[in-house]
């Protein structure tokens, strides 16, 4: 009796997980479960997915769509609407240059141009070896210490071109 009861349970569990066996999908499962598979939790789930996978590949979007019982078009629509979601792989390290007004007045544009030259990248691009992505932000709210740059999630204020290049040189 016991074994027959356990079997379908195990099967059901297997079905829920992604066929590739990729453990990161388990993180997604947990997030969706915590949000009770509510459709309005889509943005939260996508945030988690991007955190786990680095970017939102098509497979992940389909998985989320199935999990939340939403049409893929809706999931894709949301993923492409918001700036923070990326459908392309990001570099292992990211350098975000803030282009908010205060940073702009303090020369963030020139800073970005300099960095583009030094790294051989345009903003939004990643180095060929996948190490560094150079991105821009609209305003990170650190206006008091403009111009500000975020390297791997850590905010640094009153930056110069040389200081940033020194910090990311090792990744380049």
């Amino acid at each position, binding site marked *: 009796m016991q074994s027959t009861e356990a079997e379908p349970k195990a099967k059901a569990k297997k079905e829920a997980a992604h066929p590739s066996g990729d453990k990161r999908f388990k993180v997604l499962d947990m997030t969706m479960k915590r949000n009770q598979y509510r459709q309005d939790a889509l*943005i939260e789930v996508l945030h988690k997915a991007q955190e786990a996978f680095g970017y939102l590949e098509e497979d992940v979007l389909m998985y989320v769509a199935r999990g939340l019982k939403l049409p893929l078009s809706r999931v894709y629509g949301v993923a492409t609407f918001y700036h923070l979601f990326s459908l392309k792989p990001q570099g292992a390290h990211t350098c975000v240059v803030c282009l*908010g007004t205060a940073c*702009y*007045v303090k020369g963030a544009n020139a800073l970005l141009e300099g960095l583009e030259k030094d790294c051989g990248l345009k903003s939004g691009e990643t180095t060929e070896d996948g190490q560094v992505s150079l991105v821009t932000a609209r305003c990170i709210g650190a206006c008091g*210490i403009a111009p500000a740059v975020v390297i791997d999630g850590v905010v640094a204020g009153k930056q110069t071109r040389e200081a940033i290049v020194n910090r990311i040189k090792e990744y380049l």
Partner: protein
Amino acid sequence: MDLTELRELAKKERAAFKSIRVHCCTSTGCQASNSLDIKKNLDTAVKDAGLEDQVQVVGVGCMGFCGRGPLVQIDPEETLYEEVTPEQAASIIDGIKGSGEATATKGDSQHPFFSRQMRIVRENSGKIDPERIEEYIAVGGYESLYKVLHDMTPEQVVQEITRSGLRGRGGGGYPTGLKWATVAKMPGDQKYVICNADEGDPGAFMDRSVLESDPHLVLEGMAIAAYAVGANHGFIYVRAEYPLAIQRLQKAIQQGKKYGVLGSQIFDSPFDFKIDIRIGAGAFVCGEETALIGSVEGKRGNPRPRPPYPAQSGLWECPTLINNVETLANITAIIGKGADWYASIGTEKSKGTKIFALTGKIRNNGLIEVPMGITLREIVEEMGGGVPDGSVKAVQTGGPSGGCIPAEMLDTPVDYDSLTKLGSMMGSGGMVVMDHTTNMVDVAKFYMEFCRDESCGKCIPCRAGTVQMDEMLNNILKGKATLADIEKLEALCQMVAQTSLCGLGMTAPNPVISTLRYFRDEYLRLIQQTSNGKVPV
């Protein structure tokens, strides 16, 4: 919990305060300059000096003077140290002990930057540990919530807010009491309260600072609002760009539940209220209320036509109250000290105080809370200390929806109506000072590019109009434009402003219109340069 228990807790917490409190700023700005290491070193130094009985190191929220961070302040003497390094931490403790001199730069806590301020919303900022609800309770927190739940009817609360004259701090300046009354009047059992913390204006960080420095103030304001309008569920929609604010809010909500000031049967009353956090994903348009509602529902942040207003049909078609962070942060003080007190501050039509983020080409960068009606000159020259080299050329207020106010008009009082009259607006409170090195056409182009990128694309005037205006400004900057182009640009500005669906499009032309109004010669110079001194027609 009842009032005696709450006051007992506050008393106990206050008794535990040491006689000397060393406040170390742990907000985003100062954390970016190693303030966490400073705090760690201060802690070690206190222990090494054996001063644990008298001295307490507290990680506090923003003290406001972000441009000179990291800041350390010693209370009660209010000795301020600026641009502290982790290495200097030990010497500050030596200074307290009397065994040495502090090597850190001493600041002036009586500087006009501080002394001209009037702190209502930021009263506790930089004074209490934002990660501990006990400290908030120690300074009288949650007493206003208790008061409304036990001594006031929802109608009385709405009346009190109406009488205070509080207006929305997110930019529009809609009377808060009127908004509350509309939601309160709506039938239906399910209503929502949303706190708009999607502070998208570049150059503004007041809401981030309030959330990071005093999250419980906002939670208490939301709970009072919910009681007044009859809601039982609230959402805080906060930008993903503010990870520290999100983290502190999450902690605050948990603590609030633990102490029974959030959740069911708050303060043993029949009032239930829970708060969920919704994290944005980087879309400026989500600051618009109908777009924000879409985003909370997990959809694309597209605005929809109003009416119906969210107050009538908002989140999941239920009546919804949407207020900005700073608006909600004012509520506790209004209930605590009374509407008459609040209404006595400010000007006839703009009551209370407003927080501004003073940034750009100015000596003293940071956050200031000032009474409405103060002049721009007082803010920029006295508090801000003026431009480091040269003089003020313009002050930009209101972000991409606002305009540039020229130096000649610095004597304008800061209130909703005066700023609108100048072609700018109060906005959420960004104030970016520009000097002679700033090219005003370039500024207009900067904002237009911003609006072009952030336009959601739903309505054509905004989607196509911003692209065209951006292109025209580009041509002017490159010297490829004629006088006729400026006329065309002006006509297009009018058209986009009048026909766009939401606030983003309606106000997108403002920076162009205001720079054309006050700095037209800069546009003309760019045109003249390329036509060899002759103005083409």
